[in-house]
């Protein structure tokens, strides 16, 4: 079965003489096309889990199967390639490059992947249209509202057609209306088949997912299956 399998993942940080378990023996299976929210207090390990899922961080021990491939042993280069092709990130603080326009920010993953400029323009135009950002294409992030910035960031996260979207508090810096809009876009992507994993503090948001994972002290405390609405 395609999807993600984490088996007995440990992530230990060395703080002085002490070993702190950010993740302690975490096992998790996520189906392709699943919609999961990860909740828990600060320091519970949810961001670390997201970083490991996104191949930005490596576990100290344990096995990570990504679409049936063990990628714990991947080289940095191979992991970068997987991030580029399979994973889209959405951040709380958007992480747009301030000197680039909205269109250029969206184009960035294509540039890094070495897609030629003709194809790039075509794909960026298409996504600008579908996300309603055409008239914002040549604005720099500083000239955009929070909601618009996050829409640009999402367009960037999806331009490579990833199989999985990782969103770290995507609504954390937005007002309610913009936040709702963003969540609806993300859920739309999930309906199209992308796996959606959201880290959030917001219980309301957490309940919208198919499955809610509650973390505490680096361990999965509970998994709640929500009614799929």
């Amino acid at each position, binding site marked *: 079965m395609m999807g993600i399998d984490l088996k007995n993942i440990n992530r230990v940080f060395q703080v002085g003489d002490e070993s702190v378990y950010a993740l302690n023996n975490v096992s998790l299976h996520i189906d392709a096309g699943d919609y999961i929210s990860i909740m828990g207090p600060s320091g519970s390990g949810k961001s670390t889990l997201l*970083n490991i899922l*996104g191949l*930005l*961080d490596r576990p100290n021990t344990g096995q990570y199967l990504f679409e049936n491939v063990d990628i714990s042993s991947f080289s*940095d*280069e191979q992991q*970068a*390639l997987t*991030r*580029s*092709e399979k994973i889209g*990130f959405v*951040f709380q603080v958007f*992480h747009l*490059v*301030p*000197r*680039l326009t909205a269109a*250029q920010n969206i184009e*960035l*993953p294509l*540039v*890094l*992947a*070495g897609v*030629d400029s003709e194809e790039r323009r075509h794909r960026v135009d298409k996504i600008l249209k579908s996300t309603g950002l055409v008239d914002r294409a040549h604005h720099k992030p500083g000239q955009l509202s929070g909601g618009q910035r996050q829409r640009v960031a999402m367009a*960037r996260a999806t331009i*490579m057609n990833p199989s999985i979207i990782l969103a770290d508090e995507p609504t954390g810096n937005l007002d309610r209306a913009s936040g709702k809009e963003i969540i609806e876009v993300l859920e739309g992507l999930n309906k199209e088949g992308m796996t959606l994993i959201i880290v959030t503090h917001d219980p309301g948001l957490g309940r919208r997912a198919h499955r809610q994972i509650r973390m505490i002290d680096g361990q999965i405390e509970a998994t709640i299956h929500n009614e799929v609405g």
Partner: protein
Amino acid sequence: MKWVDYFYFAFGALRGFSVRTILMLVAMSFGVAAVIVLTGLGDGARRFIASEFASLGTNLLIVLPGKSETAGVSPGSFVGQTTRDLTIDDALSLTRNSTTDRIAVITVGAASVSRGRLDREVTIVGTSHHFLDIYHWKMAQGRFLPKTDMRTEQSVIVLGATLKEELFKAENPVGEWVRVGDRRFRVIGVIASEGQSFGMDAGDMAIVPVSSAQSLFNQASLFRILIEAKNRDVLELAKKQIINTLKERHQGEEDVTVISQDAVLQTFDNIFKTLTYSVAGIAAVSLIVAGILIMNVMLISVSQRTAEIGLLKALGAKTHEIQNLFLVEAVLLSVLGATIGLIIGDIGCRIIATIYPDFPAGAPVWAIFSAFFVSVVTGLLFGVSPAKRAAKLDAVEALSK
């Protein structure tokens, strides 16, 4: 990632940090401009000297009395002999050599030249007819010394332009009489004010036949004999012939020195080349300083753009791609700086050339290329460490900045 995109991205990054970029460019371009202007001056001086020599004719040989190796304490001084003088007869004997084209003798002294109450102390050059052609001087008025036997005294004089101004103002001096010491000379011509030629101010001098000068100064010796060889190829042979002829005339003693124009030119050439290299080296130090500045700028850039680097990693940028991005940025900085520097340097040389038209300031090609090359390599070298630092950043940590 494609190479063209590296450049595009790096260029965008440089534009995004414009003040810092401009300061960096100023530092780099001044370094390069310094190399260009200084080598331009050095090489200009070299070419200036070379052209001065060329105007004297490159098949010129100069005979001076005494052997240069024995200058100071000559062997003769121990046996009661002084250095044998060069005489007009020596000069005349050289005219019979097959390689000799033209010959001129020089004897030099100082005397006052007066006309009425006007009086001026000038250099008196005693010489012969071919002197004018050998020195490539021109006449402004009248004619030069006649082609007569060097041994004949004649009371004729050719004036330098300045001296003519002093004594005659706007009058035509040809045919007039002037007094040199206690003798009277008739003016037959005026030298055109060609300026200076190797310390001899063509303006502030008077020229008389060599015999007249010798009796004026009461000496039988010559200061120099100038021989123009038939062509450049026989120069060495001409030199040998001159030495042999004079050795024979001086009872087998080799007591003259023959200098070729080439040898002197070569010496000057070497001196100025060395000078140019050393100023280039000194100026190149500023390129190293600029390189250190590049490193500084790039390190600041890396720490300010940590979040961006984290993002690029999240978006799938590979380690070497991040490294290349920053390297390209550093190289772009130095190439831009070097190009601007070349332009500033060129403008500098042109300004110098406008102010001193005689002085051919202009950087030699090797200096232009090496200034450019050194600055680009400096940019690359000093860009490596910041780029490595950027590439090594931990993605998670970088993103949280």
